[in-house]
């Protein structure tokens, strides 16, 4: 069983703000889910390998190459079907979505180290 206290700690760990009024409901839901998944305790996993990746491919690595922004053309109808590696983006691509910026920096509340 997860306590309401633990649920608050989890919310904090995941940087979520939990409305205290909703904590009992959320705790109830989490306990029902955690209670359900505990059925795995009954599965015998002796000798079973932990599966972290599917189909077992390995060493999918790229060569050390740098690609300038704009070095890859956009797709065109019936154009080159090969998929190019992703090049760099213009700083503008960051700034157009950034909620707050200063010059080409992203601005955030003061970080206390």
């Amino acid at each position, binding site marked *: 069983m997860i306590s309401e206290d633990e649920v608050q700690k989890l919310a904090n760990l995941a940087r979520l703000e939990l409305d205290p009024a909703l904590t009992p409901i959320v705790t109830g839901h989490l306990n029902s889910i955690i209670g359900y998944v505990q059925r795995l305790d009954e599965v015998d996993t002796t000798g079973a390998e932990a599966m972290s*990746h599917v189909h077992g491919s390995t060493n999918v690595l790229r060569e*050390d190459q740098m690609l300038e922004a704009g070095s890859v053309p956009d797709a065109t109808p019936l154009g080159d079907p090969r998929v190019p590696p992703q090049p760099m983006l213009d700083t503008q691509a960051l700034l157009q979505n950034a909620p707050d910026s200063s010059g080409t920096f992203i601005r955030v509340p003061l970080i206390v180290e």
Partner: protein
Amino acid sequence: MEFETVIGLEVHVQLSTKSKIFSNASAAYGGEPNEYIDPVTLGLPGALPVGNKKVVEYAIMLGLATHCEIRRFNRFARKHYFYPDLPKGYQISQFDEPICERGHVDFYMDGAKRTVGLKRIHMEEDAGKNVHDSRTASSLVDLNRAGVPLLEVVSEPEIHSPAEAAAYLRAVRQLVRYLGISDGNMEEGSLRCDANISLRPVGELKFGTRTEIKNLNSFKFVERALEYEIARQTAILRAGNQVVQQTLLFDSENGSTRPMRSKEESADYRYFPDPDLPPVVVEESWVQDVKGRLPRLPAEWATELVNEYGLSLYDATVLTSERAFVEFYHEVVATCGNAKAACNWVTSEFFGALNKAGLEIEHSPVTAKGLGELIKLVEDDVISGKMAKSVFEEMFETGKAPGVIVNEKGLKQLSNDDEILAVIRKEFDSNPGQLAGYLAGNERLHGFFVGQVMKATGGSANPKKVNDLIRQEAVARKGA
């Protein structure tokens, strides 16, 4: 009560690849803020990492150079924490399966060999940089550095003084520079160091409570921060109190450490294998291939310099401090054939001139071959040591080969016995009074004749020969 200091270092080595560890963005230092970005660097929705093969190779290289075991089956893991310079909310690192384990770094300190064990070396991505502005109560984030490849080198707690910590760090820097995998530039953050430090009563086997000092970005700061922390912990223990386990920041302005506020909460990093990155299998054939391409390392060079070339440990240490130095030296010896003379020339005249001109060895106007030829000219008595110094100066200024300068200036040394003897005889005959005194045993007059001969030959006569031949001629005259 006396205390023993126990230090372990975590060194972050920034690799000098062209691109980032998981994307095609530039891994260069500097740039305009947020210039080196791409979807992966920004942690954009949908972006996926693809590993850089060179980073794995560099990790194997450093692992081999530090005598580590290389792990065959490698997985990357995600380490979770929230911070504005960490775009994805997790850092891709390695957790309980580091690529290199159980190695050691050997180095000399105060003329004695030291060995510090390595726990592990693992691959990970760097975070971005934050600039703080308390005036506007804001911080500014630059992600150019985010995703630049790092190797984290974790030592065993086997370092026992601040000086030894600095010497170890220099040895790591030397290694990565030899391997050409990092420029090791501490000012630009290519080499960063965190130190774990604890004290224990001498003779005690159990470790004391440790503190961790973050982000020591120069050799000097490493020593100063550790010295401060030793004093601080000693005072606490002497007063009968307990050291609190915490993360500290070194304040280089006032030379003290202070607790890091952002590290007050106990972290739960929730590591798990990164599903976006298939495992990297390092087969023995890959290790052997990398091994075959490793350059000679400082320890091998130093052994050769002492045992084969007969240099002192001190000279060997100076010459092997940089790969470019020892390779330069090696070529000088190959050209001139005299290891000791080459050592003297390289460490005094050559390094002195580089220093004075503020030049890196890579940009030296004097080549190793040129310097070797110059030394050979002295060895072969073509020119005198004194002449060689002025030829060297001219070489450094003009970049000309020594032979060319000697020819141009007619600087050739007079070494032919018959020619020198002819001059000596002439001087003896023109100065009968002095000759009589000399033959009668006045040693001071030997100097007089040396001076006369040198003057007559415009300083080009080989002084050693002049010396010997004056005595030989005097003996002949006495006997006559």
